[in-house]
Each structure stands twice: as structure tokens, then as C-alpha cells.
């Protein structure tokens, strides 16, 4: 056998290995995507049937009474809304601090690191924490406690995206502002923050999407309820908790409602995500 022949055999083998691994990876990818597609399909199949005006206008009732999820949807809107109102300004302030004031300093590095850990810390523990510092002192479960838990989960997400977006603002903007004699506060409030604001709102939308689906922390804070209540100091229903209770119940009617609720919440989260992408695209397209 000549050297060329040996090399040719080796070359063929290397090509075969590469092609085989490529196919293997593709197959793995397709399997993974099929599984994920399957879940969404199940959700639509089982949840779409129950979508009716009743679902939104009627509150939760015992099986057989034609109950809906109205109070849970309103409860979720209230708690997610309050959670965002509390968490967004805080998160933005942290992000601005990291991007504009602390920058690469030691203190800022520690804050950044801790924020990144809070970002993926188990949400169930945030629930336990808020139970101990809000629910126990207040003497009972409340929508306020639920909102605080959601705010603590939204804060690190918003801080992270705010910092990332503000770092994209060209350094020349800051230099120009300072060259005109502006103070740091003026530079941030009049120049860099407005330049980054569209992107920051994108981050807020992502945070809203993230906290709307949170279930575990609400078990320990707002508990859930069957009543139509807008009282912030008492237990309040929420969509994820309603899904959790209904899905683990033995009544078929409740399980169907749980699927419909899961479909609503997933659609909501996906719409928020897509909206944040579109707004991000529009904002970055303008610059």
C-alpha cells in the first residue's frame, strides 16, 4: 500500500466520524425540540377547549358550579403589577449604579456577582424568606407579601439587563456630556439613561414574564383564595397557585380549568417575551 492509499483511508475515516457526529448532534437537537414542541401542543390541545368568557368573568367555585379563573387572573395582575412597580425602580437603580458609578470597582464587582447569584437562586427560598419577614409580622398571608416576593425576583433580572444595556451606550456620549461640564447625575439622567431607556423597558418586560409564572414563592406569601378580592392585606388568588391547586385535585372540571389557566399563562409569557424582542429590535435598529 502506498502512503497515499493509507492517507486516503484515514481521510475517509475522519470524514465518516465527522459526518456521524454531525448527524448524532442533529438527531439530539431534533429530539429535544420535538419534546419541547410536544409540551406546547399538549397545552393547546387540553387548554383551548376551556377558553370561554366564563373563564375570565367567573371566580373560582366548587366543582359543578361553573366556576372560572377570573379572581385568579385579576389577583395575578395585581401582584405582578405591584411586584414590578416595587422591583423595577430598585433593579434599574442597581443596574445604573453598576454601569455608571461603581463600574469595575471592587464593591461593584461584589454587587454584580451577588446579583447574578440572586438571579438564579431558588425562588422557593425567596418565598420562605418573605414568609418570615412579612407574613409572620403582619399576622397573615397577604397580597402585599406576594408582591414583595415577586419584586425580589424581578429586581436582579432588571438590574442585569439595565447594566448590560447601559454599557452599550457609547463612551463618547459620557465624555461629551462631561466635557460640557455636566455632573455625573446630569450625564446619567439626561444622556445615558434616555439613550438606554428602550432597552431597559425590554428588560422590565422580561422580568414581568419571569415573575408571572412564579408559583412556589406565592405558596408562602399570598397563599391563594377562592374569593374575588382586591384587599391587599389579605390572602389573594393568583393564576399559578390556582393552576397548582386545581391540577392536583381529583375533579376533572378543575383539571380542565388548570390546563386552560396554564395555556393563558404560557401565552401571556410568550407574548411578553416576543414583545420584548420586538421592542429590543426596534430600539437597536434606531441607533
Amino acid at each position, binding site marked *: 500500500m502506498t502512503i497515499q492509499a493509507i492517507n486516503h483511508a484515514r481521510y475517509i475515516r475522519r*470524514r465518516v*466520524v*465527522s459526518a456521524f*457526529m*454531525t448527524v448524532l*448532534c*442533529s438527531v*439530539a*437537537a431534533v*429530539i*429535544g*425540540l420535538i419534546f*419541547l414542541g410536544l*409540551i*406546547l401542543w*399538549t*397545552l393547546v390541545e387540553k387548554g383551548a377547549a376551556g377558553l370561554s368568557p366564563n373563564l375570565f368573568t367567573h371566580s373560582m367555585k366548587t366543582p359543578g358550579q361553573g366556576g372560572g379563573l377570573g379572581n385568579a387572573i385579576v389577583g395575578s395582575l395585581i401582584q405582578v403589577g405591584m411586584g414590578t412597580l416595587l422591583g423595577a425602580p430598585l433593579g434599574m*437603580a*442597581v443596574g445604573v*449604579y453598576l454601569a455608571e*458609578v461603581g463600574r469595575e470597582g471592587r464593591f461593584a464587582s*461584589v*454587587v454584580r*456577582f*451577588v446579583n447574578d*447569584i*440572586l438571579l*438564579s*437562586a*431558588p425562588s*422557593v*427560598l425567596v418565598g*420562605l*424568606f418573605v414568609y*418570615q419577614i412579612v407574613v409572620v409580622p403582619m399576622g397573615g398571608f397577604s397580597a402585599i407579601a406576594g408582591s414583595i416576593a415577586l419584586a425580589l425576583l424581578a*429586581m436582579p433580572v432588571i*438590574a442585569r439587563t439595565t447594566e448590560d444595556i447601559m454599557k452599550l451606550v457609547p463612551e463618547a456620549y459620557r465624555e461629551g456630556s462631561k466635557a460640557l*461640564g455636566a*455632573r*455625573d*447625575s446630569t450625564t*446619567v*439622567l439626561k444622556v445615558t439613561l434616555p439613550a438606554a431607556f428602550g432597552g431597559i423597558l425590554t428588560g422590565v418586560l422580561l422580568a414581568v*414574564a419571569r415573575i408571572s*409564572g412564579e*408559583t*412556589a414563592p406565592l*405558596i408562602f406569601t399570598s397563599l391563594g383564595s377562592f374569593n374575588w378580592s382586591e384587599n391587599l392585606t389579605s390572602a389573594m388568588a393568583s393564576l*399559578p397557585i390556582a*393552576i*397548582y391547586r386545581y*391540577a392536583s385535585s381529583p375533579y376533572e372540571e378543575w*383539571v380542565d380549568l388548570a*390546563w386552560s389557566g*396554564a395555556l393563558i399563562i*404560557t401565552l401571556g*409569557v*410568550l407574548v411578553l*417575551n416576543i414583545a420584548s*424582542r420586538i421592542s429590543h429590535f426596534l430600539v437597536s435598529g434606531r441607533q
Partner: protein
Amino acid sequence: MTTAPLEGSRRFHLGENLFRAVLFVAAVVVLVTMGAILIILFESGHVAFQKFGVAFIWLNQWDPVRDLYGAAPAIVGTLATSFLALVLAWPIGFGIAYVLTEICPRPLRGPVGVAVELLAAVPSIVYGMWGFFVLAPVMSTTVQPWLTEKLAFLPPVGEFYWFSGAPVGVGLFTASVVLAIMILPFIAAASRDVLQTTPQLLKEGGYAMGATRWEVLTGVVIPAVRGSLFGAVFLGLGRALGETMAVTFVIGNANRLPDSFYAPTASIASIVANEFPDADQGSLKLASLFALGFILFVVSFFVLALARLLLRQGRMA
């Protein structure tokens, strides 16, 4: 005259100081939150540590009637489901990432990538419901009996009988599969971001040497971004460890050590979510739940810290 504006700017300025103070306080809130969670969880759980000592961590008991608690079943359940999920999800997640960066036709990369990221946003309770109503029955009737038959030759290790036992559908194995499916999009998206950071020049160098696509991946890309790839995996692990809803639906919620992959067991998060409604204020049980929470927080902290360090290292390189 010319120095006047300069001096003016150096003088104490209320707005500027207020601005800095507000931002600084916000940054401090981040640190305080982290510290407070750690302290409150420990503080509320220390009665359990006092009663059972450090042994609480490895005591294999959970008996509310006799008021005896230990963390062993929950810790084992948490670690076993998370690692198994990682073993199942990592190869597929990496496959998706590789396909998205190298193989997939360019016009498809964007949409498929976005689809993967959207799937990562689906609330975990949806994965839990799907696992309970769709996957568990299939597990029970088809997958588990089949695996039992094919893997019957595995010799038991101590009290652990691998793939035997009643195929009830909910348990350690099903929980791991649901967790794997849930963290799959996270791992895929994070790994893709890492693979994309490989300098194009390095890859082109590999191809110019005549390397095949696979050789470029294993010989150039992976060595260049190895640390960050591990970071992406640890990020997935961090998610899996603390996941509550996806696990609670399908783990079976039995507070004992599993004697096979099919046995119902519990994780820290699932015990806390499940037992909390029956735990009275001031009871030893509630303290034990907080102690479990403290353990989970410490474990996740280290896993997530490692993930961030690995990812950050990669970003600097």
C-alpha cells in the same frame, strides 16, 4: 474669574449627592437581600439543628407524628434528580447548541434559537403538569416496564435496585426526565452563547489545516471555551437544584430514601412546598423546613458561584 465655575462644581451639590446615595443604597439592597435570606433561613431553622445537631443533614427520617426530622431523603432526592437531569439534558442541549452554531442553515439559526429561548421562558408549573398528566402514564405503562426488562441484569448496590420496583409512573426517574426537559432550553441557549464566542479566526485556522467539522469542534472550539461550557452546565444544575413546581408534581412526595429509580421520593424544594401548609407556626417541623431551605440555599450558592466564575473567566479570555 476663570476659576469660579470650577470651584462651583467642586462645592457640595445636594442633587448630585442624593443621586449617588440613592444608587448606592440600591446596590447595598442587593447585598442585604442575599445576606438576609441566608441569616433568616438559618435563624428560623436553627431549632432543628439544635435538636438534631449537624446530624440533621444525614439523618434518614421524616416522621411528623413522632416529631423526628432529617434531611437525608430530601438531599439525596435533590442531588439525584438534578444530576440525572443534567446527564440526560447536557448531551442534547449541547447538540442543539452545536447544530445552531455550525450545522443549521443560516436563515434557520435565528428562528430556532429564538424558539429555544422562548421555551426557556415557559413557566415551570407547565412542565410539571405535562409531566404528571402526559409523561407519568406513559412512563408507567411503557417506558418503565421496558427498562426493567432490559436492565434487569444490573446488580443491586446496597439497598438500591436500579430499574426495578413498581412502575407507578411518578418517582425519582420521572422527576429527573421532567427536570431534564425543563433545563434543556437553558443549557442549549447558554451553550450556544458560549460556542458563539469562539473567535472565527481560530475555527478558520482549523479548517485551513484540513480538519473536519468534528475535529474543529473537539480540537479547537471546545479547548477554547471549555471553562465557559462548564459554566453553562453548572447554571443548568443550579436551576435544577431549586426547581419546585416541575418536581413536586412528579416526584411522588414520599419522604424516604429511594430504593430504585422508580421509587417515589422527595427533593428539598418539593418537601418545603408540600409540607409547609401542615407546619404550624413555631413547630419543630417548620424549623426543619427552614433548615432544609438553608441547606438548599448554601448548595445553590456554591453551584451558582462556580457557574458565574467559570462563565466570567471565559468572557475575559
